[in-house]
């Protein structure tokens, strides 16, 4: 690719600017559509691998006990799954669709995240109030970072230098410096923050507050809450569209998804999606949102333009899908 462009530039410098523009366009184009969704099924100790193009279940992988958290690497090759009951982390091969290794970590591994370059894995321990730093290939423990009470949702920023941690029972989000491996800032949010998600530009962090039924919006440059948006009852998971214009929030007790306009910072629609919606994520390219309905054991596919449900794909028992469950999703 680079050689090609070099040759073209040598051929004729007047095309240079055109080709530079083309390169800029290529770089700014989001990655390809995700191939698989990896759904943690807490009720039957498995991960459902769903082929997103064919809208069907491709494989079911047995993992530890009561899997909840999931993190898919940006290139889709590595899948990390937490098992709070058996206190294990599983590493799955995202291409061969099989287990590579697993390891005992902590007392209640729940939230999990992988850096954009895949070089480190972070795991929130619900009981120990720690974030573990893990090796991405052998899952060995590299460091432990003390955080607030009941850490749950995790997000890593675009350059991998910052880790954000929802601390459910402290009503805060902590900012961790990933070189120092320590909390450098603590931000007050709503009541019982659980799920968090960063937009694709890395400018904002959205926080779902389970007990105050609202969404805290954090400006990641200022590290301040710039808005608190009321949503439905018991918000749990968040997805942000690739253009960062729309935010979708699952409302567990309302069986709905709130659609938020990211510019106006308010709810513009509420869609009924099914019972007890939990994990949610936006595909990096094709204008779709995927939602795991915990009570009815299905993955709902939502068109983000028409705001219509276009498919329902069966999963295993009690899907949680807590985390980034497709490659490159937000």
């Amino acid at each position, binding site marked *: 690719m680079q050689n090609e462009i070099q040759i073209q530039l040598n051929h004729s410098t007047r095309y240079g600017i055109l080709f530079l523009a083309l390169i800029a366009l290529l770089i700014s184009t989001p990655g390809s559509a995700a191939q698989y969704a990896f759904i943690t099924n807490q009720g039957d100790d498995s991960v459902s691998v769903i082929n997103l193009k064919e809208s069907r279940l491709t494989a079911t992988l047995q993992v530890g006990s009561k899997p909840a958290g999931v993190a898919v690497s940006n290139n889709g090759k590595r899948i990390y799954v937490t098992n709070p009951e058996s206190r294990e982390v599983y590493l799955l091969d995202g291409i061969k669709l099989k287990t590579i290794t697993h390891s005992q970590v902590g007392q209640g591994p*729940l939230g999990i995240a992988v850096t954009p370059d895949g070089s480190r894995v972070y795991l929130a321990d619900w009981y120990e109030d720690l974030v573990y730093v893990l090796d991405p290939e052998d899952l060995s423990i590299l460091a432990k970072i003390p955080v607030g009470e009941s850490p749950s949702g995790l997000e890593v920023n675009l350059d991998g230098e910052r880790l954000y941690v929802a601390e459910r029972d402290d009503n805060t989000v902590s900012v961790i410096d990933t070189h120092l491996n320590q909390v450098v800032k603590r931000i007050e949010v709503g009541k019982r923050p659980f799920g968090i998600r960063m937009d694709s530009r890395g400018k904002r962090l959205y926080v779902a507050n389970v007990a105050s039924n609202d969404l805290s919006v954090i400006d990641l440059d200022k590290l301040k809450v710039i808005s608190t948006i009321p949503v439905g009852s018991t918000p749990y998971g968040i997805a942000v569209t690739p253009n960062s214009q729309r935010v979708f929030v699952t409302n567990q007790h309302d069986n709905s998804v709130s659609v938020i306009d990211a510019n106006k910072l308010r709810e513009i629609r509420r869609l009924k999606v099914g019972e007890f919606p939990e994990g949610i994520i936006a595909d990096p390219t094709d204008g779709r949102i995927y939602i795991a309905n915990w009570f009815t054991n299905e993955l709902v596919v939502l068109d983000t333009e028409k705001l219509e449900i276009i498919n329902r794909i069966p999963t295993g028992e009690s899907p949680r899908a807590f985390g980034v469950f497709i490659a490159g999703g937000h």
Partner: protein
Amino acid sequence: MIKTAALLFSIILFHTGMVEAHGPTRQKVIVKEQISASPQAVWDVVKDFHDMSWHPAVIKTEGDGGNSNGAKRVLMLPNDGKIHEILEKYDSEKHSFFYRIEKVDVKVLPVTNYSSWFNIAPADDGGSIVTWKGAFYRGFPNNEPPPELSDQAAVDAVTGVYKSGLSNLKKLLEKGS
């Protein structure tokens, strides 16, 4: 030592009903009952949030707020057991309501963060299918729960409540028919 203190603290919080901490795995229970009575007839028996006399374990229901969202009731059970509940959603056309437990001693019902749907749908034969569903965590929020506060104990207790309630409802509605 710290663990013991944390445990004691969580037990104290439990009894004041303040705690929202919970175990790692949410549980679900679904119980269905087919009843030979119209959905409206079944609804007429259960529709008052402040009258749960159709359930054999409920001695008395107290509370206010009617059937509007946010209405509160206290279910009085044998041996001074009490369950404080709040109505979250009520739909008389769909014969459906959604409520959650605000406060309960885990000795009375070994659950935390409990929410529940009650729904009546028409059956093909003109009768009704009543569905009672619950989502909740076990009574013990930390690791290594004692058996009486385990996931299984929570599921068993809620299943028992639903089954005994729905079979009594069926008996009440089908008697004499």
